[in-house]
């Protein structure tokens, strides 16, 4: 009923003694996520919400058999924390941190090609398999178990679309927030591939936004490889060129690439309907099921 995470996933929280890390570790535990360890340099031996804290991720993985990490570490130390996660045998690392320098992410991107660990984020809300586990900061109560996969570059937009679905009784297999930065780990194509190969996912929602060409690449991939019906949404139709719209990656370049129009056209050409409103996306998904 899911991709990437389920109730067997054993989670280590990097930065669990910080304000955000502590709060969201609590929220994750409350949701039922199997949080087995924290990792914070210098804080080994402590406990947070009854969860043991280790000085290194390596030790946390060794002692508690963790297979996924969620990273709540300030931007200046985030790349180092991601490298640490990538240097263990974890299957999955989820970086929530907003504001990681782009050059740091270029180095992380290079390391990703040398490891088997999958990275989600940074600058993302994380991911959730409703009823089983959430890794990140998504509000669990708006999600419901079901058969729609969702992938999105924006956190709060994810909540809006999921709310529209759940209100109609349409649940989700897994929802993945991939983040709004120029360089990220898992992208649309990776997530679409996962959902396409998941027999329980009957329809897919893809929420994109202005900036870059990831949506165009996703459209080409859908055209070639995706049988599962996909409905799309693209935020930023009204964005002026050259202005960063909140996300580091959400900027239409002066030469006209990265516009909402080019993304919507590419998706339409691949047979993906793009809603004008989140409700229209939900209508479309309803018609697929």
């Amino acid at each position: 009923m899911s991709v990437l995470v389920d109730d067997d996933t054993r989670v280590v929280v990097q930065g669990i003694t910080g304000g955000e890390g502590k709060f969201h570790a609590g929220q994750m535990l409350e949701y039922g996520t199997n949080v087995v360890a924290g990792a914070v340099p210098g804080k080994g031996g402590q406990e947070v919400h009854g969860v043991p804290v280790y000085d290194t991720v390596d030790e946390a993985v060794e002692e508690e058999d963790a297979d996924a990490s969620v990273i709540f570490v300030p931007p200046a130390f985030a790349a180092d924390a991601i490298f640490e996660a990538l240097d263990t045998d974890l299957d999955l690392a989820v970086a929530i941190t907003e504001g990681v320098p782009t050059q740091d992410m270029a180095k992380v991107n290079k390391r990703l090609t040398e490891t088997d660990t999958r990275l989600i984020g940074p600058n993302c809300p994380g991911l959730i398999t409703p009823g089983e586990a959430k890794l990140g900061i998504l509000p669990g109560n708006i999600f419901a178990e079901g058969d729609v996969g969702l992938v999105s570059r924006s956190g709060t937009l994810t909540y809006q679309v999921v709310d529209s679905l759940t209100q109609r009784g349409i649940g989700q297999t897994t929802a993945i927030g991939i983040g709004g930065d120029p360089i990220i780990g898992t992208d649309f194509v990776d997530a679409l591939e996962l959902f396409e190969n998941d027999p329980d996912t009957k329809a897919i929602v893809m929420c994109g936004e202005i900036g870059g060409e990831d949506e165009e690449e996703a459209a080409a991939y859908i055209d070639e490889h995706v049988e599962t019906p996909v409905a799309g949404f693209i935020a930023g139709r009204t964005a002026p060129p050259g202005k960063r719209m909140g996300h580091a990656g959400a900027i239409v370049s002066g030469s006209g690439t990265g516009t909402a129009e080019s993304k919507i056209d590419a998706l339409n050409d691949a047979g993906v309907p793009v809603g004008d409103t989140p409700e229209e996306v939900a209508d479309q998904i309803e018609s697929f099921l």
Partner: protein
Amino acid sequence: MKLHEYQAKQVFADAGVPTPASTLASDVDGVLAAADEIGYPVAIKAQVQVGGRGKAGGIKLAEDADEARDAAESILGMDLKGYHVDRVLVEEAVDFVNELYVGVTMDRGEGKPVAMVSTKGGVDIEQVAEETPEAIAREHVDPAFGMHPYQARKAVYDADVDPDLALDVAGVLTTLYDLWDDRDGSDAEINPLMVTSDGEVIAADAVMNIDEDALFRQPEIAEMEDEAASGDELEQKADEYDFDYVRLEGNVGIIGNGAGLVMTTLDLVDHYGGKPANFLDVGGGAKAERIANALDMVFSDENVDSVVFNIFGGITRGDEVAKGINEALGQFDEIPKPVVVRLAGTNWEEGMEILNEDLVTVEQTLEDAVQRAVAYAEDEEGDQ
């Protein structure tokens, strides 16, 4: 963060990129003194952060003191595409025979830095990239190793740069890459890189954009930040409040949490026939004071005829948002413009309980909230 030309030139010169002699001046006497020192002819260049300065009359050549005075008088104080010119760069006019382009940027599709060289310098390089992409040689760089000198040479030879100049241009490109890397650049460009009749290369213009997210480790660059550079008082105010804010042309003020959701709210305003006045993201976990600041921001825009709040709480709590709205609006005898509020997600019910509905209009769904705000804006417009 974008550096002014004079700042970028200083950074480039410090790193060893050849640049023309130049001095910054802010009045006519300063321009004349600088020109005397440098020696005529000089170029007088408006220091504002817009493209196409030359065509807009912001760059003039002066052969002597009379011409320099005329140029300084016409450029200083001028309005250049909405930006007030209060500083000019007085610069040695380079006698050139050819113009090249060199640049370094992040290729986000590849997730790697890319170095670029073109013999089509001195023109709009984005147009070149669109119309004749083969005229720009590109070399991707492994960010873990940095650019090897052979890569710079390869790019230069691929671009068919004159063999006599190739090693000098490759040297400039290597320096530019190292600088871009050290300073957390997002773009670094020299256009044009002029070739003098003596066969020397010299950076006649300089563009440097720095990754805002990396300013914490670039204190010297951060100090160069020119608050007035955006040219918009409201955007400066947004900087003080630390909001992600973009001013737009319309009259429906928009406040929300999360970039994607705020963009979506803008798009919906447009979809329902209204015109967004701004993008304002309060970010995650905003407390009451921040919400009040956001309202202050949007009310200070005289074009705003109505305001829509769209909050979908995750980290952000509905009760904090409601408290902020009550506090901000409670200070007015009469609310300046109608405010529509839509709260969802974390603690929205607690928020609805404390929200003072005498001050705002409440809607349950995003669609209803946006349509109500658009209708209010139309009414307000009709009243004027």
